[in-house]
């Protein structure tokens, strides 16, 4: 494996700045690595090798003119639910298998403007619905640490691509944990920003009030660099917030003295893999050792989070996915008699089982006579969950939890039991319901050699505190430097 692909974003940017490496070198190395590892992993739906080389040359030209920037010339890849102009964007669905994006998502445009080199579009659960990346119409992605296991989901491709050193940074989307949970499963860093921090314009919607784009990278510093580029107000997204974007890198000073860490007792319960709990407790002690104050708190409405999430998310999804009807773009059933038949067949053929399940749930939750009992009640519980966090944040700076209750599970292990699968996101979902920023970073490995994730949750728009705490922990450990053996030599 080329050492170039094992670099972190800031290491690569430093080499670029010092002219010790070119964007072309980095990109070629990434494309070679992709070619070698893709057969075993399938992180990508589309690899844009030609476009990437062009972008790399353009980035080198910009560097030659004296320009620089944290992502200028850095090979990245984008979850295939985010539109990239002129490139196929599928959302992992058959219904969009032929859809070429007619415009750039705001985050894509910002990466482009920053000179990041996009090497391709990453595999994901169809319409971001899933916790394993097994629900992609284009096949499953495998976990680089054990190719018999899932990479987590729905941004499984975004996480595995980093873990397998296929590129240096990726974008995922997180509706109920879809960045953090796969980051934990793959042993990389993934950040879900505050709702409204990053524009959703051009991001194919799953659940509008929960979705948020965020970065994945090998290091906390890499995530900070990516976030600095994609974050900020966008007039095309009414829910994006007009607040200035801090210089995240400037906050990463390694200091946590006096940091008030809350540990919610509801997150350390039966069902959590003992090695996961042990690793998180060890991480807490390490931070305490650096002068952080740790105290136990309660988030009493946590137990309603999964139920609330599945009502809100599926209700919004049932409406958001109505546009895929075969009329204007995407798949259309070939033999249909009349309009209604065309709708039925198109959607029956185009959507996978999990998507259909959620559309049905959401349609039911919104239908006349059930709206008050389900959707409206869920919104009320959502408010209670948010207030739980507000109360904790009145006296603490961050909340620290495991990211997922277990390490990566086997492919196929949970597909027959959706409810069991839904519990994969049990520790991440509340954060989306409350709209908070949260990061997952590696904090150890279990006895099977699978990574364990630590989640740090912050106040709204306090990404810099979350990143600072995570960076401080990262400096104390070597977890992020480990390489998965399974694909280390470019094969399973």
């Amino acid at each position, binding site marked *: 494996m080329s050492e170039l692909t094992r670099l972190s974003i800031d290491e690569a940017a430093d080499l670029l700045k010092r002219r010790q490496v070119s964007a072309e070198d980095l990109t070629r190395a990434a494309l070679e690595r992709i070619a070698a590892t893709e057969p075993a992993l399938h992180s990508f739906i589309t690899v844009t090798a030609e476009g990437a080389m062009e972008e790399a040359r353009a980035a080198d030209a910009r560097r030659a003119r004296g320009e620089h920037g944290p992502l200028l010339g850095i090979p990245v890849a984008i979850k295939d639910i985010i539109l990239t102009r002129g490139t196929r964007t599928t959302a992992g669905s058959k219904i969009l298998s032929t859809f070429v994006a007619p*415009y750039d998502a705001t985050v894509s445009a910002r990466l482009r403007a920053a000179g990041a080199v996009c090497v391709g579009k990453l595999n994901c659960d169809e319409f971001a619905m899933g916790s394993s990346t097994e629900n992609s119409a284009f096949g499953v992605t495998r976990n680089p640490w054990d190719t018999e296991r899932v990479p987590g989901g729905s941004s499984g491709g975004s996480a595995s691509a980093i873990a397998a050193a296929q590129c240096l940074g990726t974008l995922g989307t997180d509706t109920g944990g879809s960045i953090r949970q796969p980051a934990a499963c793959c042993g990389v860093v993934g950040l879900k920003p505050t709702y409204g921090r990053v524009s959703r314009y051009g991001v194919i919607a799953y659940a509008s009030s929960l979705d948020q784009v965020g970065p994945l990278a090998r290091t906390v510093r890499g995530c900070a660099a990516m976030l600095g580029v994609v974050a900020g107000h966008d007039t095309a997204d009414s829910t994006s917030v007009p607040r200035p974007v801090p210089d995240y890198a400037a906050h990463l000073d390694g200091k946590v003295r006096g940091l008030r860490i809350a540990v919610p007792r509801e997150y350390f319960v039966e069902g959590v893999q003992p090695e996961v709990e042990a690793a998180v407790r060890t991480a807490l002690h390490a931070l305490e050792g650096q002068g952080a104050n740790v105290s136990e708190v309660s988030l009493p409405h946590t137990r309603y989070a999964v139920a609330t999430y599945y009502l809100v998310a599926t209700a919004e999804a049932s409406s958001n996915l109505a546009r895929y009807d075969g009329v204007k773009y995407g798949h259309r059933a070939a033999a249909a008699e009349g309009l209604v038949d065309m709708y039925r067949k198109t959607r029956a053929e185009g959507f996978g089982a999990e998507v259909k399940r959620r559309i049905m749930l959401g349609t039911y939750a919104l239908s006349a006579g059930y709206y008050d009992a389900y959707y409206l009640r869920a919104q009320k519980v959502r408010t209670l969950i948010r207030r739980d966090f507000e109360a904790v944040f009145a006296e603490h700076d961050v909340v620290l939890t495991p990211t997922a209750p277990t390490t990566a599970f086997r492919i196929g292990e949970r597909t027959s039991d959706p409810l069991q699968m839904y519990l994969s996101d049990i520790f991440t979902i509340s954060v989306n319901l409350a709209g908070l920023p949260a990061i997952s970073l590696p904090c150890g490995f279990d006895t099977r050699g699978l990574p364990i994730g630590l989640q740090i949750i912050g106040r709204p728009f306090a990404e810099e505190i979350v990143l600072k705490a995570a960076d401080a922990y990262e400096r104390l450990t070597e977890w992020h430097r480990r390489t998965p053996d399974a694909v280390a030599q470019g094969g399973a």
Partner: protein
Amino acid sequence: MARGQYEPVIGLEVHAELLTAAKVFCGCSAKFGAPPNQNTCPVCLGMPGTLPVVNRRVIEFAMRAGLATRSEIAHYSRWARKNYFYPDLPKGYQISQYELPICTGGAVDIEVEGAPRTIRLTRIHMEEDTGKNIHDAHGDASLVDFNRCGVPLLEIVSEPELRSAAEAGAYLRKLRAILQYLEICDGNMEEGSFRCDANVSIRPVGSKPFGIKVEIKNMNSFRAVERAIEYEIERQTTVLDDGGRLVQETRLWDPDRELTRSMRSKEFADDYRYFPDPDLLPLVIDDAWIAAVRETLPELPDARRQRFVDRYGLPAYDAEVLTQRKDLADYYEAVVRHHANAKAISNWIMGDVLRVVRERKLDNAPIIHDWPVLPERLAALVKLIDDGEISGKIAKTVFEEMVSTGGSPVEIVAARGLTQISDDAAIQAAVDAVIGANTAKVAEYRGGKDKLFGFFVGQVMKATEGKANPQKVNELLRAALAG
């Protein structure tokens, strides 16, 4: 129960397309009449990943309508999604307002046969329009034109307080006038920028509960609305009188056969699964914004009518006709500014101007755009009459030419030699000639047949090609016949 013992209960839902330059959730032009699918972008086509951003003008237009109808402007309202599948609805839902609309309450004052009434409004809310399906235009395929997708609409819902087709017509005309005065809707029913659905039921006189309600759609003129309501009252009365039962349904007005027919039955009862649109923030309006919009409100139809009576001394009837349309009232005032004969000008506009406007079917579009007679020219025409330059009769001829060429009345009169003959000698000569040529009739007249006077006037006018000053003709004829 015998006929005539039912009371109609009518409520109207009006959809008014707003005259904003851009659509409600994107920057596309909202102008009518572009080639199919030209005024579209990823947002109004509902492409994957797109998000709506509210056009502030739309909110202000809604506030204007609300303030002009004495509605309560909500400080906090919300956008909702109305979910249903239709090919002309790109997102699979329509962004509308549901349980928290921007305006509630409010009222419109009407007058039917001299009796004033106030019709209360339930609500006014904003929503986006949909596209249009075009069938059979291309073999057996159906095409969709998405140009109207995202064009802003106001839905104005009245309480079920209208009691006759005439009241419904008066209400609609007043509402349209208000929107036109506010310059937020062109009110063109034929082009669909001012659409109306009517909910009609009947109940025994004196009874409180409502009868079974029928919704009527597809009416594209005021006349159609009135005729459809009349038809429906009649139909429902007949059904009940015959011991039948009414069903709640939607019926379409068929303008050719002048009847309503059933569109769909209850088994297709819609469930729109409304819920707050998570892509749009709640709409918060503060008092300062309301006050600023209130500042911009123009004089409204009722106030203007009163002012026409007070300032120009017009009869109430004239003032009512002239102020029903803002463009007509503006035109009237522009003419009067050039020549202060208020009543004569009112007569010209109510008579000849409106007749030609109707003949040319300009009554749906703002007259001022297409109307060829400039205000100063109509004023000049009336002045020519007042100055005795031309007769009222000649003026009609001049007017027709002004309508067809847009020319100036002074030039038309000069070019065609239509100047009135007021010269005594010339008229006297014509009078003498007529008397000389009709000796028998002169004898009859002198024998007491007074009615023949009109005949002599006619002959003199004919001899002078209508140009003789009628007053002079009268004078000189009387003198000669008395002779």
